[in-house]
């Protein structure tokens, strides 16, 4: 399956990446599993994606790491929000 992954703010900077399009095996079914998979890319990735304040969204809704991922989903990682 194919998903899009987006990174914002401090996370985007730490990973030097704005967006990825990933082909995943169908066995990779949760945000948590995706984070572990991405963590294999190196220390910056494993440390950044395991930060306790990290927020994750699937299809523009904030979710827990246990949330499932399906083909075509848009996943995003970012720090706590500071708008307004």
């Amino acid at each position, binding site marked *: 399956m194919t998903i899009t992954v*987006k990174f*914002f*703010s*401090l996370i*985007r900077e730490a990973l030097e990446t704005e967006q990825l399009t990933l082909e995943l095996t169908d066995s990779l079914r949760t945000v948590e599993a995706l984070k572990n998979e991405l963590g294999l890319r190196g220390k910056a990735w494993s440390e950044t994606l395991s930060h306790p304040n990290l927020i994750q*969204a699937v299809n*523009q*809704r*904030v979710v827990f790491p246990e949330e499932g991922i399906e083909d075509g989903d*848009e996943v*995003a990682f*970012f*720090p*706590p*929000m*500071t*708008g*307004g």
Partner: protein
Amino acid sequence: MLVHVTDETIDPGDLATRFYSRHPDAAVATFAGFVRDFNDYGRVDSLFLECYVEMATRVLNDLGNKAKQRFGLRAWQIVHRYGEMETADPIVFVATSADHRVEAFAACEFVMDTLKTDAPFWKREHSGGAGHWVTVKGVDTDRRERWSTEDLDQ
């Protein structure tokens, strides 16, 4: 347009004028936020506001609809700027109208409090060549929390 998330200049005076004209309801509350020229550490020259645009639009739409239902609003609008801004540039405009002022005020404050912590925007302040990402304030989390105890519909 109930929600507008844009990287172009916004004009709160024009937005308020149009809102009043379309919704001359008994009670209309508005909030406008402008880029401040100071923070906890000193002077601020400019602001970069990063935005996850598709999600911000969705979150603000959900928020406006929730405010409408919860406070019995007649009308509402949320406009949020993102991108590079200078001191005193407008960032955000919220308007709420209702039959009574208590509901209009409460809804406007609820939208602002919730938007601060739930809408995907990230502030980066610049002063004298240096920049830093703004961190979440305890007061904002507390303000958001105030409304949650009554969030029966969540």
